[in-house]
């Protein structure tokens, strides 16, 4: 079937449903009746006459069918004519077409780009099979309500449950490989149980999945790459299977590529989890676990059974599993709740970009309205020739839809071009999981197509109605200047302009609030000196002596560098958050009952305060003499001192923390005991959690008395030049020290602060809203200019007469400006009210100011008033330069 005839049958079906069909049946029946009457009158019997009439008709169904074809054909034919005509008109008005299409391309392109992200992240369901049966399983301990699961616990759940069809686990921590031998930048992978993909119902798009045996020691050097990594680093090479890469464990082979967006977190590859090599420590909880419910099993049943298993484990292994339970929730709900904040932000931007599209469409509608004046004469001529009004409207609508489709096509090109940078911004802000594949695909194109067509119809309707308003007696007089159609056209135009100005206010207020929050945030001091400060991280080892020795050696090595002022290690640098610990103070009764004796718990080395630039308020910092053998000591933060020692000197007082014996630092199986520590110093407050949160109480302990296996190495360089040099060389120095250890990328603290979530979160919204607001103001200015210019042109004759009669130029000028001022004021008032409603959604993003910040509203009003004034000043000037002679000759 040709496209034309397929299209024809679609149209036919659309056109000919019940009413038209019934009408046709009646018509044909009437024909048969009358033909029979005729034949009876000619002398036939009633029965013969009827039979003859039916024969004359031919098959009823055939007639019906050919009538439908004829109608559909005629409709399509006209549509084609309208289309050809529309293209001709658009080509003839090249200037207008270019301006309108560019405006629309901006609006539709921005919407397409945002939609492609929102669609993939928010709207589309997870790319797994039978997602409704997939559940996430996690642990919940007395201290941590959401925790991962240890490998032995996972094995016990796997063997003791009968609610899951499959259960799989992955560990996304501490695993890196290097793509090439020279490229010493590890990429992140997750170790997964071999049935992981099977449980999700995911097949690799190329290559093979993991099979039993891949997890036997010696066979495990195989990886599956993510779609995003494969596209970015291997240019989607279809022959990737069999390629090898270097890892810290040897050479690994690529066996396949995952479909897009299977991994919700930032990993680049999967590799089998090898039971023989993986930690069997029940206190080592690093596994993400999920499962597929058996058909018919509910989440409540699964939860009940996991409770039973947890109780059994608690009785059997009280040291590690005391008070521990397992929790379970639908996987899609789990993801939705973990990403709720990001989703809200994305939807907010989707709404904002919709406003931009509205302004763009309103501007184009204004252009079309202005042209409706010229077009109405053409329409009148056609109407005089007998074209019906509906035909004229259809013609004008086809024209505006074609125009919007051109804008849409350009918009898609624009979206393709900018979607990657947009994505990078959104990822940095934590709005979407890292490394997702986001493409301008079929769904997105469908969205753009529908948006263009609907917007073209909606915003083309008023201009079409205007142009097709064919009051013959009036139109043929040939003067559009005096027509009353002009009045309603002007009204429509003004409404559109007020809307544009109001929307500009909303977007400007939004971005103004974001700019002010952002400035306050970045100037908020984290409590440390971020300049020339470097950070890297490593795994110190699994035993206390090993870790202390490793970090001691690392510190000795880096301190040899002449460009270094100081170096230290810490369990958590500022902005990275901290783990809460309950403490008690000697001599303070009823401490444990409050909830306020929680403090951040950080392990540090000597020189930490010096390295970070944290002032010591009182007492001393740790020295090399504070070791496992000496008195347990502690440094507290100023906020803690102020709260618990308001009128006394904290130095020399003691506080206690629940600690495990240092000699078994990294095994949580060690018994917990309360250790009394002497306060030796008070340090200034630091924003440990994030830039936007007030500094919390913090307790520092020397890492030589207790150590974690993952620690950060902090280095303060002499100068920016040293920092740059060290950034490039530091890791090599450290790797040379112990080639078996991997080190994280060396980063500048400044960059860490700048890309930390609270900043990046706002940067995304700030940049987008700022861009939207900029485009909105620009379009509103152009729109205002256009409207005022037309208003002046409309009144040329009137103004000319008044000038001829001696009206001062200043009066004419101020009158036009006053008109513009009325519109602007209306826009500002409506916009301010709308902004109050809109900025409610921004509240969580604001920092240090309120959503009804007067400075912002005032500033926005001034900016917009100024823009509107400038946009209307030029037409107003022109009005005063009207030459009465020329104006009057226009008649």
């Amino acid at each position, binding site marked *: 079937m040709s496209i034309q005839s397929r299209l024809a049958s679609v149209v036919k079906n659309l056109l000919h449903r019940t009413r038209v069909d019934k009408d046709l049946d009646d018509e044909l029946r*009437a*024909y048969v009746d*009358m033909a029979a*009457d*005729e034949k009876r009158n000619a002398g036939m019997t009633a029965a013969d006459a009827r039979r003859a009439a039916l024969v004359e008709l031919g098959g009823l169904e055939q007639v019906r069918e050919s009538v439908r074809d004829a109608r559909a054909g*005629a409709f399509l034919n*006209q549509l084609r004519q309208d289309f050809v005509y529309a293209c001709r008109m658009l080509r003839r008005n090249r200037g207008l077409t270019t301006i309108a299409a560019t405006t629309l391309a901006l609006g539709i392109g921005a919407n397409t780009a945002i939609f492609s992200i929102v669609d993939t992240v928010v709207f589309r369901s997870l790319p797994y099979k039978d997602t409704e049966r997939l559940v996430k399983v996690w642990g919940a301990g007395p201290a941590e309500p959401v925790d991962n699961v240890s490998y032995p616990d996972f094995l016990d759940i796997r063997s003791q449950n009968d609610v899951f069809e499959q259960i799989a686990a992955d560990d996304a921590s501490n695993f890196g490989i290097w793509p090439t031998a020279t490229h010493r930048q590890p990429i992140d992978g997750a170790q997964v149980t071999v049935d992981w993909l099977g449980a999700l119902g995911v097949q690799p798009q190329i290559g093979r999945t993991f099979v039993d045996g891949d997890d036997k020691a010696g066979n495990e050097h195989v990886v599956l790459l993510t779609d995003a990594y494969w596209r970015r680093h291997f240019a989607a090479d279809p022959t990737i299977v069999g390629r090898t890469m270097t890892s810290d464990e040897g050479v690994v082979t690529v066996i396949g590529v995952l479909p897009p967006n299977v991994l919700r977190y930032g990993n680049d590859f999967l590799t089998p989890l090898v039971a023989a090599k993986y930690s069997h420590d029940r206190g080592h909880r690093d596994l993400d676990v999920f499962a597929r419910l058996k058909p018919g099993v509910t989440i409540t049943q699964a939860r009940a059974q996991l409770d039973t298993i947890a109780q059994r484990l608690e009785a059997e292994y009280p040291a590690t599993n005391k008070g521990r339970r397992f929790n379970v929730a639908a996987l899609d709900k789990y993801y939705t709740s973990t990403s709720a904040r990001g989703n809200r932000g994305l939807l907010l931007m989707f709404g904002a970009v919709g406003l931009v599209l509205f302004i763009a469409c309103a501007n184009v509608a204004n252009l079309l309205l202005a042209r409706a004046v010229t077009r109405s004469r053409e329409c009148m001529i056609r109407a005089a020739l*007998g*074209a*019906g009004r509906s035909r004229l409207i259809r013609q004008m609508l086809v024209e505006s839809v074609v125009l919007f489709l051109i804008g849409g096509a350009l918009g898609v090109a624009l979206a393709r071009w900018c979607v990657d940078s947009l994505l990078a911004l959104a990822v940095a802000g934590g709005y979407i999981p890292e490394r997702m594949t986001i493409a301008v695909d079929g769904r997105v194109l469908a969205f753009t197509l529908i948006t263009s067509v609907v917007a073209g119809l909606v915003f083309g309707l008023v201009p079409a109605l205007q142009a097709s308003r064919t009051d013959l007696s009036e139109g043929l007089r040939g003067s559009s200047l005096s027509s009353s159609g002009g009045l309603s056209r002007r009204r429509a135009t003004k409404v559109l302009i007020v809307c544009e100005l109001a929307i500009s206010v909303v977007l400007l207020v939004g971005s103004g609030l974001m700019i002010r929050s952002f400035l306050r945030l970045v100037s908020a001091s984290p409590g440390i000196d971020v300049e020339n400060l470097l950070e890297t991280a490593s795994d110190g080892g699994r035993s206390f002596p090993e870790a202390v020795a490793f970090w001691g050696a690392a510190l000795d090595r880096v301190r040899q560098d002449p460009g270094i002022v100081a170096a230290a290690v810490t369990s958590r640098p500022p902005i990275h958050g901290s783990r809460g610990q309950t403490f008690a103070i000697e001599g303070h009764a009823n401490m444990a009952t409050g909830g306020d004796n929680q403090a951040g718990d950080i392990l540090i080395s000597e020189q930490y305060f010096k390295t970070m630039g944290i002032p010591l308020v009182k007492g001393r910092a740790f020295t090399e003499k504070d070791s496992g053998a000496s008195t347990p000591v502690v440094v507290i933060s100023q906020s803690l001192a102020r709260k618990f020692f308001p009128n006394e000197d904290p130095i020399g007082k003691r506080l206690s923390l629940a600690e495990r014996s240092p000699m078994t630092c990294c095994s949580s199986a060690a018994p917990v005991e309360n250790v009394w520590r002497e306060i030796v110093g008070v340090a200034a407050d630091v924003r440990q959690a994030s830039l936007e949160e007030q500094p919390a109480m913090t307790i520092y302990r020397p890492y030589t008395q207790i150590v974690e296996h993952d620690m950060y190495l902090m280095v303060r360089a002499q100068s920016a030049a040293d920092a740059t040099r060290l950034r490039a060389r530091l890791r090599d120095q450290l790797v040379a020290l112990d080639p078996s250890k991997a080190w994280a990328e060396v980063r500048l603290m400044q960059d860490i602060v700048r890309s930390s979530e609270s900043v990046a979160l706002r940067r995304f919204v700030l940049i987008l809203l700022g861009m939207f607001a900029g485009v909105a103001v620009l379009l509103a200015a152009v729109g205002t200019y256009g409207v005022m210019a037309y208003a002046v042109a409309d009144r040329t004759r009137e103004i000319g007469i008044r000038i001829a009669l001696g009206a001062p130029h200043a009066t004419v000028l101020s009158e036009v400006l006053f008109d513009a001022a009325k519109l602007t004021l209306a826009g500002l008032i409506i916009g301010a009210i709308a902004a109050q409603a809109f900025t409610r959604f921004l509240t969580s993003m604001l920092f240090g100011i309120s959503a009804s910040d007067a400075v912002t509203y005032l500033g926005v009003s001034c900016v917009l008033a100024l823009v509107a004034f400038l946009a209307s000043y030029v037409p107003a000037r022109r009005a005063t330069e009207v030459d009465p002679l020329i104006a009057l000759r226009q008649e």
Partner: protein
Amino acid sequence: MGTAKTSLLQGTLDLLILRALSLGANHGLGIARRVQQITDGTFDVRPGSLFPALHRLEEQGWLRSEWGESENRRRAKYYELTKTGRKHLEVETANWDRVAQAMASAIAATS
């Protein structure tokens, strides 16, 4: 049937229908009979081609239709020419005259 012939026939039929209706509104059967009449019985328009043509012409805006009552009190759909339809008839009539004269002289010249 070749396309050229079809379109020629279709054009002819359209012209005949428009011409028949230029004498006044009429229903399907009436139009068929009137065409027969004005062509001295040369063209017998069957419903199978008449109704598609009527609907096509209506869709193109040359005809409009309305339900009414026939001379022997039957409900029937009446067609009449629109202003565009009348205009189109004039144009097409002029065209046809030109074609007919050209054809006539062409045939006369060869014989």
